[in-house]
């Protein structure tokens, strides 16, 4: 199989990788811009690495990631929801702080091998089926969890009354407030839960794909996750499809190299970034004058009964 899921080793689009985009979708659906994914993923990765090496327990490592991410999410929440600070700058600050702090904290464990691995779930019943077997037969726990998250988030946003409230808050917080929806509380909840998902994506990157921590190991995958949100037009199912499309692109680069065609690898590595811009331009051109799918109040702070 050319493009088996375990073969598309593009880390932004595999396993829990696209969970970063899912977390971002949850946050942005509530009307808050989230640009800190790169820093948050790094923090998730370094936290899981340190705790896993210190305690040897995968569960504890994941719990620590959730806790650290929740704290970072709260910081973003206080800045953007309570203080109504500029959400773009808050996201950039999150990326800078996360990059610096993760490099600082990770220095002692840099390059150290992990004491264990994430268990793989071999499903013999699936492995016998032709196409599906090699694709889904032996993936790790995180990958299944990520599929479940896509479904859960999709159903939550589009099929529950809480999801309806969420969309209302993202599109028109003033109206939602009049209807009695707790705008600020809902935004806080989305930010904290979404940030946890982004942190888990970072932990997945470390625990599943890279054997050890090294500084700046996400190498722009957090930003690809941010681009994925726009690609997927804030829709979880489309995010999954787009993530695997990018995984395929990245693999394509590797495949071209293997065929022996003389293209310097630097140019092949540019493909995902250039395609990101090209596809966004195509989408922008195709949907001129049409709504982009972005929550209408995205990036605007909400202040009850007051204007800036």
């Amino acid at each position, binding site marked *: 199989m050319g493009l088996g899921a375990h073969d598309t080793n593009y880390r932004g689009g595999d396993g829990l990788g696209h969970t970063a985009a899912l977390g971002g979708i949850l946050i942005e659906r509530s009307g808050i811009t989230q*640009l800190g994914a790169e*820093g948050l993923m790094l923090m998730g990765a370094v936290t899981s690495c340190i705790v896993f090496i210190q305690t040897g327990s995968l569960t504890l490592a994941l719990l620590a990631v959730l806790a650290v991410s929740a704290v970072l999410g709260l*910081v973003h929440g*206080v*800045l953007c929801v309570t*203080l*109504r*600070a*500029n959400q*773009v*700058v*808050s996201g*950039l*600050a*999150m*990326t*800078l*702080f*996360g*990059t*610096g*702090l993760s*490099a*600082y*904290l990770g*220095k002692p464990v840099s390059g150290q091998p992990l004491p264990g691995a994430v268990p793989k779930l071999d499903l013999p019943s699936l492995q016998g089926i032709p196409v599906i077997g090699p694709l889904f037969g032996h993936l790790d726990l995180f990958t299944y969890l990520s599929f479940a998250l896509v479904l859960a988030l999709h159903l939550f946003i589009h099929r529950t009354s809480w999801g309806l409230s969420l969309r209302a808050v993202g599109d028109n917080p003033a109206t939602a407030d009049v209807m009695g929806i707790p705008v600020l509380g809902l935004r806080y909840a989305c930010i904290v839960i979404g940030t946890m998902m982004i942190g888990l994506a970072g932990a997945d990157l470390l625990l599943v794909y890279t054997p050890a921590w090294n*500084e700046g190991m996400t190498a*722009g995958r957090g*930003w690809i996750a*941010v*681009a994925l949100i*726009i690609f997927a037009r804030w829709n979880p199912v489309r995010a999954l499809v787009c993530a695997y499309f990018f995984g395929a692109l990245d693999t394509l680069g590797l495949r071209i190299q293997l065929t022996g065609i003389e293209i*310097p690898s*630097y*140019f092949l*590595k*540019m493909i995902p*970034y*250039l395609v*990101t*811009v090209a596809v*966004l*331009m195509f989408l*922008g*051109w195709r949907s*001129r004058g049409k709504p*982009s799918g972005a929550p209408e109040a995205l990036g605007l702070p909400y*202040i*009850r*009964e*007051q*204007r*800036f």
Partner: protein
Amino acid sequence: MNERHTAPSLQLEQGRGARRSRFRRPYRIEIDPAGGQGPWWVPVVSIVLALAVCGIFIAWNGMNPLTVYAKMVKGAFGTSFGFTETLVKAIPLMLCGLGVSIAYRISVWNIGAEGQFIAGAMAATAVTVYYPELPMVLSIPFMLLASLAAGGLWGLLTAIPRTYFGVNELITSLMLNYVALLALNYVVFGPWKDPKGFNFPGTPMFTEAQSLPVLGATRLHMGLVFALAGVLLYWLVIRYTRWGYELRLIGANAEAARNAGIPISRHILAVMLVSGALAGLAGMSEVAGVTHRLMYGISPGYGYTAVIVAWLAKLNPAGLVISSVLFGGLIVGGYSVQTIGLPSSVSSMLQGAILFFFIAGAMAGKFRLRRSR
């Protein structure tokens, strides 16, 4: 005026509060619409708080934060060598910070200064690679022009998708940073690599004729003149020209500016061209003034740090000079703590933390406490 504006909301708030909880809050916090940017001491307090928070992490590693900070300050400002090094680092920050400030004036989120810096550095180096024999009077102006053009073009590559295709400029400028970085790595590991360089990923050293003059025995070079001239020009343009006036108008209220017939798309293109050109100039001044060659990792993230420099300066020219010297010092201080076994990432951690507290503080300055009746 504020009294009248907020009175109805005050009643509504109390009505809800009375139903919801048994406690009456004696004070409430609200935003003063005319609060402006908050008082001058906000940046100072945010820096102190950021130092305190990062101090916790430093102490966690078993170091005394005060010793570490003292070491940083001494390394960056304590000696004449340290201070000129700080100024050397401040040059690219000032130029990139100027670039992003111009874009932020009209809410164009250029975070591509890093890529534009690299593009400028590469273009300047291309002049030395392909025309190695030019005399100084020709080579330096050519390098300048090449870097301005390359940086400006890299900026336009962000502006065009934004204006004509509605693509978020944050994403484009960021993706282009990675593209520029990969292109840089390609040339320094590939075609431009110094054949006599023992496999060092960099071009051959520039000749005297390809280097900017330096001040005495220090590494402080003429780029400082470019940077200060740029700051002065920025101030004059924003303050006294029609273009600057239109930029301020768009910055204050884009909708009103559009209705007044100001062509916003054209301004976005122009602003990104200028913004990129300034970052490109920073790249040229770095290769021609400091490293004297194009090499792997030419920028330790100047383009990203410039974003904070610009915010801390509140996009104000004098503030830009102060904050770029401060952050230059932070980078040099970061290097100096390596001697006591701390990673230099202390400085990027501090940068992020300062930005957090600064934006929080800038908003908190707009709030005020009111006694509710």
